[in-house]
């Protein structure tokens, strides 16, 4: 409960500014994001390529 009163003044646009321990969470989110982009845009797997074909061309990812 004390945490709440202490973080309240640090809030920016409605939520707390991340502190050191949040960096791990941000790194997780970034790696997750990169992983999804890799699968959709870059995986050389033939199956994924075939499913993603039109989307890759539409996004101007290098394809083929």
């Amino acid at each position: 409960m004390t945490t709440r009163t202490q973080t309240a003044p640090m809030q920016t646009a409605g939520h707390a500014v991340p502190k050191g321990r949040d960096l791990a969470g941000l790194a997780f989110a970034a790696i997750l994001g990169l992983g999804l982009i890799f699968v959709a845009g870059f995986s050389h797997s033939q199956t994924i390529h075939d499913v993603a074909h039109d989307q890759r061309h539409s996004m101007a990812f290098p394809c083929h």
Partner: protein
Amino acid sequence: MTKHVLTGGLIAGLVAGLFAVLLQLTFVVPLLLEGELYESGDRVHFGTGGPESIAGAPAIDGEMMRHAGTLAMSLVSWIGFALLLVVGFALAARAGHSVDARKGAIWGLAGFIAVALAPAMGLAPELPGTIAAELGARQIWWSATVVLTAGGLAAFAFGKGPVAVFAGAVAIALPHIVGAPTLDTYFGVSPPELSAHFAARVLAVSAAIWVFLGAVAGWLWARPAPT
């Protein structure tokens, strides 16, 4: 905080991915299907003795499974981009910069420049059937260009002093000075009008999706985190 980033990225990515498919199926995929007619040889440019071929895209409603795949992969990649964008918001918040829907739209515009416009300067959006340099080399150049352009734009936006501006400009220019992997021969079988129209539409649609994504993600970000 992590939960706010993940939820915001997921929702913004889903919404942007749906918007992306709507725009791409309307404006981009018809040209892509038309390009495939030349790739397969069903249409041949300069094939009748004169420099003309029939224009017009085939109907788009014949292959719903194919478009379902496009939808799925669109959601996957736009959730990925949305997560990275919101991580950027969080890092900016650490440095004392707030983000709302309007600023988010500017972030989205920067995303378009980094992920679509800058790589297209070296590797233009390709119609199916385009023969280009080795895929791995192009993927490396594309990725490096995206990272360097994003870093350069971040230096412009958040760096202090002329050194940051100079370093940002160098980072943005570097991949184009090095040059994208290309071939020493042209192999295009599609009419140049079709290829040009495809490339222009890919970029214009991409700009619209990125700005939309940025605005939605920024709006979600500015909302109070659930406690």
